[in-house]
C-alpha cells in the first residue's frame, strides 16, 4: 500500500470515529433531555432524606435580579434523571483519585466512616460553660457534666493517613479547666472507652456518628459513679435490627451497602415505667415506628424531643434533670434503675421555659450529657439555660 493510501485509510477511520462519537453523545443528550421533561418531578429523595426543589415560579423580580437562573439550576440539578447514580459516580471517582473525605466525613481504614471534628469557637464554648456554671449556682443542685469522645479521637488509628481534625483531648481539657473550682463534677469518658476498646468491643457504628449501645452500657458505671451511685449494672443486649445504615453513610454519600445491628440494653430486673413526650404517654422507651422508618436510630426515644419525662415505680428514689444530645438516647435505660423520675431536655428542640420547669420540679440532681463533637458546635444550651424568652406576665 502506498503512503497516501495508508493516510487516507487513517483519515477515513478518524472520520468514522467522530461520526460515532457525535451520534452517541447526541443521542445521550437527547435522551437525557426527553427524560428530564417527560419524567414527573420527584418530591423526596430517599437517599438524601430531604424534599427536592420543585419548578421555580418565574416571578419577574427574581428574573430581573438574575436570581431566577440560580433557582432554576438548583431545580434541574435536583430533578436530573439518574441523580443518585451521578452522586454515587462522583463519590466513587473521588475515591479513585485518592480522596477519603466527603462532606466532613472521613472514609477510614477498612471502610468505617468517621466524622471530622471542626475547630471550635472558644468564645461560644466559654459562653455555654459560664451559663452552665451560673445555672448550677442559682439552683444549688448536685451536678455532673459528662463529655463523650467520638470515633475521631477514640478510633483515631482508623483515620486516613494525615487526616487533620481538631483535638478532642484539648477540647476536653479546655472544658475541664473552665469548670474547675465549681461544684460541678466533670467526667470525660475517653479513658473508660479506651479500656473498653482493648476488650475488642465495637464502640461506634461504622456508618453512623453515634456510639453503640454496648459502648454506652459499658460506660454506665462511670457515669453512675459521677452521680453518686455505686450499684453494679446488670443487663443484656437485645438486637432489634440488622439492616441499619446510618447518618454518616447518607451524609457522605459513601454507600458501601453495609448494614449494621442496633441493640437495645435491657436490664436484668425490669422495672415498669411511663414515658411522656409531646405525642403522649408510652409504656416503653422505644419506638417501633422509629425502627421501621428510614432512620432506624429513632427507635431510641422516638427521635429527638424537646422534653420527655420518665416515671418509674421505684418510689422514694431521687429525681434527675438531664440536658443532652442524641448520645444520651441509647444510654438512658442504664440510669433508670436509680431514679424515680428522669426529665430529659434536648435544648435544640426545647421551647419551654426552664425557670418554671425548675420551680415546678424539685430535682435532686442535674446531668449534662454531650458528645464532644456536638457540644463543640452547640449554641442552644446557653440560650435555654439563660432563658432568652421574656417571662410570661401573670394574668
Amino acid at each position, binding site marked *: 500500500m502506498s503512503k497516501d493510501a495508508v493516510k487516507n485509510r487513517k483519515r477515513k477511520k*478518524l*472520520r468514522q*470515529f*467522530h*461520526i*460515532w*462519537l*457525535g*451520534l*452517541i*453523545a447526541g443521542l*445521550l*443528550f*437527547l435522551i*437525557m*433531555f426527553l427524560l*428530564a421533561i417527560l419524567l414527573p418531578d420527584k418530591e423526596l429523595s430517599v437517599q*438524601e*432524606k*430531604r*424534599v427536592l426543589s420543585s419548578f421555580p415560579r418565574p416571578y419577574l423580580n427574581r*428574573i*430581573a*435580579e*438574575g436570581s*431566577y*437562573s440560580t433557582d*432554576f*439550576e438548583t431545580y*434541574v*440539578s435536583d430533578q*436530573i434523571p439518574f*441523580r443518585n*447514580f*451521578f452522586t454515587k*459516580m*462522583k*463519590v466513587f*471517582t473521588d475515591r*479513585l*483519585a*485518592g*480522596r477519603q473525605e466527603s462532606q466532613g466525613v472521613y472514609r477510614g481504614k477498612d471502610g468505617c466512616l468517621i466524622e471530622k471534628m471542626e475547630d471550635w469557637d472558644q468564645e461560644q464554648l466559654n459562653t455555654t460553660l459560664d451559663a452552665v456554671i451560673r445555672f448550677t449556682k442559682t439552683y444549688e443542685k448536685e451536678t455532673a457534666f459528662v463529655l463523650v469522645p467520638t470515633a475521631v479521637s477514640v478510633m483515631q488509628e482508623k483515620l*486516613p*493517613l*494525615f*487526616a*487533620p481534625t481538631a483535638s478532642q483531648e484539648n477540647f476536653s481539657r479546655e472544658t475541664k479547666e473552665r469548670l474547675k473550682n465549681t461544684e460541678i463534677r466533670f467526667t470525660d469518658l475517653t479513658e473508660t472507652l479506651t479500656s473498653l476498646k482493648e476488650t475488642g468491643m465495637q464502640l461506634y457504628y461504622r456508618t453512623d*456518628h453515634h456510639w453503640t449501645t454496648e459502648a454506652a452500657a459499658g460506660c454506665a458505671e462511670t457515669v453512675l459513679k459521677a452521680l453518686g451511685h455505686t450499684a453494679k449494672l446488670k443487663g443484656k443486649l437485645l438486637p432489634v435490627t440488622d439492616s441499619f445504615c446510618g*447518618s454518616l453513610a*447518607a*451524609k457522605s*454519600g459513601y454507600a458501601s451497602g453495609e448494614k449494621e445491628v442496633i441493640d437495645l440494653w435491657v436490664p436484668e430486673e425490669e422495672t415498669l415505667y411511663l414515658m411522656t413526650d409531646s405525642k403522649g404517654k408510652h409504656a416503653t422507651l422505644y419506638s417501633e415506628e422509629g425502627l421501621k422508618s428510614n*432512620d432506624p*436510630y*429513632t427507635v431510641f426515644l422516638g*427521635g*429527638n424531643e424537646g422534653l420527655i419525662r420518665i416515671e418509674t415505680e421505684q418510689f422514694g428514689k431521687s429525681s434527675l434533670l438531664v440536658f443532652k444530645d*442524641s448520645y444520651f438516647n441509647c444510654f438512658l435505660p442504664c440510669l433508670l434503675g436509680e431514679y424515680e423520675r428522669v426529665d430529659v431536655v434536648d435544648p*435544640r428542640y426545647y421551647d419551654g421555659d426552664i425557670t418554671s420547669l425548675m420551680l415546678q420540679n424539685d430535682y435532686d440532681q442535674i446531668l449534662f450529657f454531650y458528645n464532644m463533637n456536638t457540644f463543640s458546635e452547640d449554641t442552644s444550651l446557653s440560650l435555654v439555660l439563660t432563658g432568652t424568652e421574656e417571662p410570661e406576665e401573670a394574668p
Partner: protein
Amino acid sequence: MVFSSITFLLYFLPVTLILYFAVPSVKGRNLVLLAASLFFYAWGEPVYVILMVISILGNYLMVRLMDEAGEDLKHRKIHLAFLVLWNLAGLFFFKYADFLVDIINRAAGSELKKLELSLPIGISFYTFQALSYVIDVYRKKTACQKNLISFALYITMFPQLIAGPIVKYNEIAERLQKRRITRAAFGQGVERFIFGLSKKVLLANTLGQVFTLVSQQPASERTFLLVWLGAFSYTFQIYFDFSGYSDMAIGLGYMLGFRFPENFRHPYLASSVTEFWRRWHISLSSWFRDYVYIPLGGNRVSKARHIGNLIIVWGLTGLWHGASLNFLLWGFYYAFWLIIEKYLLEGFEERHRIFSHLLTALIVIFGWMLFSFTDFTALKIYAGQMLGFKTAGFLGKEAMYLLKSNIITLIIACLASGSLLYGLYRRVREKWAPAALVIQILMLVISVSFLVYQSYNPFLYFRF
C-alpha cells in the same frame, strides 16, 4: 449561563441544537442562533442584555455610515475616532470608573462616591470584538456587514460570548453567510467540548478548592509545602479553567459550523516568557498586537520607544484582566521580563533549555500569585512564605493530607498541560476506536456527576 451547568447541558444545548438543525437555511439558522445567544446572555444578565443590544445597534449603524464615507479619509477618521471612543467609554464606565475614583480618592484624599455598578458579563470580550470589526472595516481589511442579524450574531454568538476566544470579524465573516456542517465535524466538536468540560469541571474546579483551602488557612499556620501546593493548584486551576472554556467554545463552534481561532497551545511547556505569551490566551495577545502594539510602531522603533511600547501594551493587557492595581502590576511584571529577555538574555534560552524552562515556570507561578491576591499585604506574606520566610515549618500534617488527597489530580493536571496525554489518547483512538469512545463518554458522565454533586445536600434531621 455557563457551559458547566446542568441548565446548559440538559436543556439549553439540546433545545438549541434541535431548533438549529430543524431549520434548513443559513439565514434561518443565524436567526435561531441569535435568539439562542440573546437568551443565553439574558439568563445571567437580564438587565445588561439591553446594554449589549445598544452596543450592537450603535456599532452596526455607525460602521455603515463610516463605510458610506467611501474614500473621504477625513470623514472615515472622524467616524473611527467616535466609534473607538464610544466603545471604550462603555467599557470604561462599567469596568474602570470605580477603580479611577479609588485612585483619585487615595491620591487626593477626596471622598468621591463610587458608582458600585456590577460588571456586565463578557463586556471586555464583546467590546474587543466590536472594536476589531470597527478597525478592520476602517482599514478596509474586511467588508462592512450590511445584514444586522449577521452582525449581531458575530457579537453575541453564545459559544464565545462570555469568555472568548476573541474572534476577529474577518475570521468568521465568510461562515456567517455560508457554512456546511458534516457529521464528522459535529463529532469533532463534541470531542473538543468534552475535553473542555472535563478540564474545567474535573481539574480546574477541584484544584481551585485546594487553593481556596490554602489561602483561607491563617498565614501563621502555613507551611512551605502548603504554600507551594496552593501556588501549583492555582497555576493549574487558572489554565484549565480558561483553556477548558476555550475548548468548549471551539467545540461548540464546530458543532454549529464555525471555526474559532485556537486560544492556548500548551503554555506551560514554554521555555521563555516570550514563548509563554505566544501560547497563552493567543486571541487576546494577537488583538493587542494588531490594534495597539503594531500601530504604536511595534519593535521597528528606537530601543527606548520599543521598551515604552511594551510597557504600554502590557499595562493595558494587565488592566484588561480586571480593574485593580494588582492586575496592572501583573502586566508590568510581564513587560519587565519580556524586556529582560529581549535585551539581556538573547540566545540564553537556546543554550540552557531546561534551566530556561524552570525559570519560566517560576516566573509564571509567581505571576499568578500576583494575579490572585488583590490585597498586597496578603501577597507579600504568601510570596515570602514561598521563598521560605516565616513559614510554620516545612511539611505539616494539613499539607501532607491535601497533597495526598490531590496528588492524582495534580499528576493528571501536570500531564494534561503538556501534549503527552493527548498523544496517548490519539494513539488509542487510532488503534482501538471503541476504547476512545468509552473514554469520551466516561469523561462526560463523570463531569456531569461532579456538577450534579454540587447540589448533593443531604438533610440530616437525625444529624444530632
